[in-house]
């Protein structure tokens, strides 16, 4: 993990280490992100985003995109999403929901809470790598964020 002052380009919040590793491997392989922060539950993610808890004193610089898993211990992805999107300081951060579930209520809820994208993780590894690298490419390289971030 890189905790320097450098800009965090992607914040990956994923409790499953295999998924996280595959995602990071895919992004690295495509040279999309230099600075990826991987956190394993919602509580850590919120501490990181709002510079609290173990992340107190972290420079207040928002990541370029948050890749957020929904089903996590302690604080779920939906709660993280709600808190991020209801706070003025963080509501401009693009949030991409990554999940195994294609269930309707989750998709609906996520968009209502302000998610910018909703991706169902494909079972096949090829598809998974393609999906992750595509979204990384889009949000980090193509997408123009707010000027102040």
């Amino acid at each position: 993990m890189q905790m320097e002052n450098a800009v965090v380009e992607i914040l990956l919040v994923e409790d499953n280490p295999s998924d996280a590793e595959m995602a990071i491997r895919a992004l690295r392989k495509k040279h999309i992100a230099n600075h990826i922060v991987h956190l394993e539950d919602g509580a850590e993610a919120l501490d990181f985003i709002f510079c609290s808890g173990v992340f107190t004193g972290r420079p207040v610089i928002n990541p370029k995109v948050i890749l957020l898993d929904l089903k996590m211990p302690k604080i779920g992805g939906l709660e993280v999403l709600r808190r991020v999107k209801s706070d003025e300081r963080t509501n401009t951060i693009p949030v991409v929901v990554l999940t195994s579930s294609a269930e309707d209520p989750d998709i609906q809820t996520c968009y209502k809470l302000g998610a910018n994208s909703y991706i169902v993780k494909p079972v096949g590894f090829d598809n998974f790598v393609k999906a992750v690298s595509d979204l990384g490419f889009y949000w980090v390289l193509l997408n123009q964020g707010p000027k102040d971030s």
Partner: protein
Amino acid sequence: MKDNQKKVISVTAALITMLIGLSVIIGWMTHNDFLKYLIIIPGAVKMKFNIALGFLFSSVVLLLHHFPGKTKVSIRISRGLCSIIFLIGFLTIAEYVLGVNIGMDELFVRDDQSTTATYYAGRMSPISAINFMLISVGLLTLKKEKTASYQFIYLSFIAFISIVTLIGINFISDIPTAIRLAVHVSIGFFILSVAIYYAQPELHHKIRFEQKLIAGFVASISLLTVISVLSIFYIGRLTDTTKSVEHARNVLSEAEQTLSFVKDIESGGRGYLITQDSSYLEHFMLARSNIHTNIRKLKELTQGRASLETILDSLSVYIDKRIAFTAKLITTRNENGFEAAQRLVLTKNGNRITDKIRHLITSIQRDETNLLTQRQKENAKSSRDFNNAFGILLVSMVALLTIVFFTVWINFSARTRAEKELMQVNRELEKNINQVKESKEKFSRIFDVNPVGISISRLPAGTMIDVNASLLKMYGFTLEEVVGRTAVELNMVDSDVREELIRELMQGVKVRDREILVRHKSGTMFPVLFSVDTFSMADKQFVITFSYDITDRKKAEERVIQLNTDLEANLQQLEMANKEMESFTYSVSHDLRTPLRAIDGYARMLDEDFSTVLDNEGRRLLDTIQYNAKKMGNLIDDLLAFSRLGKKGLQKTTVNTRELVENVLYEIGNSLSDNASVKIGNLQPIEADYALINQVFVNLLSNAAKYSSKKECPIIEIESKLHETEVIYSVKDNGAGFDMKYADMLFGVFQRLHKVNEFDGTGVGLAIAHRIVSKHGGRIWADAKPGEGATFFFSLPI
């Protein structure tokens, strides 16, 4: 004639009467004969002052009746005047009957000009007196219903008598004093009777036909009485005049006889003188002895006539002288001889006496003849008068009887007509009654056999007057216990419930099928559907109630409610199970896929990073791992799709099936072999959920493509047939087919008829198709032969 017109006539008539009365009164006061007689007719009499007074009072009473002003005062004045009128009539009659004069006739004025025909100066005729008595009674009983009919009778009598007396005055010159009325008196009475009759038009309908008839008979009887009185009077007079004629004739004959006796005396004497034959003396002797009897007779016959008495006295004297002379002559003949007698004759003394006698008798005869002529004239006049009066009265009688006859006849024919009509009406009535009976029977049957309990009660008390058998059975009472009591008294319903219902009824709320609790005689409460309505009959208010026992229905309802509750509980359990299932599938989709992805991913990473280390066998094993992981992923996806079908509702639109099939074929195009031929037949459009039907065709067509892929020339045919209630679609291939004994297993989940290494697949596709078709209300089935191909059919309702 309208009542108002009648009243106008009455008032006018009263005013005319008043005018007559007033003018006559003024006439008496001012000694003006014109006003007293008013109508100058030769032989007419004047109106007496009392009659004029009676007319005036009567008219005042009538006018007060029409214009009462202060009612009490008017009534008092009217009664006073009526009493006076009655007294005038009554006292006059009393005077006549008792033959006295109490001085009331000339109480106000002296009647010094009274005609000789009137017995008493200033006294009115008894007819007028009776008329006034009747009129006073009539005026006193104005507007009295009970006496209206009698009043009609005597008013008719007065009017009739007035007409008769008027005719009598005009046509019969020598009328008896008793029924002799002045012209204006007759007219006055007639007008007065009309005035009284029309003063009370309200009572005219009370006068029945019988009373009119009685009035007619009263008039007839009075007419007959008048005829009888006149007859007696005229016959008496006729007898009198006839007698006096006879009398005169007797006088004449006696006078003649006397003359003849005188002649006998003279000729007897003369004969004896010449012949001295004693037979001559016999004549003389007979005459001498009888002549005085004659004279006496004459005297008797002419008694009371002074002139004749003197004549008869001198006649008697001369007759005596003549007898004496003849006697002397006879004596002289006998004693002194013929010459001496002759000398005596020659003195002519005898002749002179005879002449004197002749003269006297002639004068009697002349006198009597004159009298006879006069009496004969009188007699003729009497018979003429009698004939006149009789004729007029008979004509009146005939006219009256004709009127009566026609009245009776008209009434009789009217009655006959009315009777006929009545009979007709009766027949219709009978018919109506029968109809009413019939409908009553119908209604009482409806009432009696109605399963709804019905009661009819009086308002406001609520006492029941009739109830039907159902009600009695429902509440457990007998009819005797119920009739005349109220439902509250019998504790059938609580008073507060009844009051509430009554209050609503009064407010106009319609109480229909209200569910209320009522009480059986045994005290158990039971529910009824209660309807109530009010109606009125013969000005009385009634209330009709309908109770329908719904105990059974309520029990059934309770059962239904219990069942519903149970069902709801079951449903809740089911829903809970469903939710659990959902969260289960969620977990499956989420949690089962993650490790699969890891298996696949790490196998790939191993392959990528350590491919140089692995030999072929190692790579084959890695491939197998990856293949199975992917297959497991597909199974999970299909399973989720299958389970998701249950939750979605149908969103029906008109589906263009042909277009849909073409799209599907395009989508699955790469799974079709190049030499495959696809035939699309006639495809009916259908009302269905596009996405789901799309899924069915995707599954069926990809199956067809898959199982025919090993043939050299795969053929796929798609078509539809329109039936009455459904459209049947079919997808036919010439592929592997299957044994029909396994057909039942085709549409089960994860059921496969082929080995995986023959044809790939999860075994969910047909299960999904089955589920979708079922959801649309259709059926799905297949027909196949191993090695020759299979046809899948599915139907969708129109």
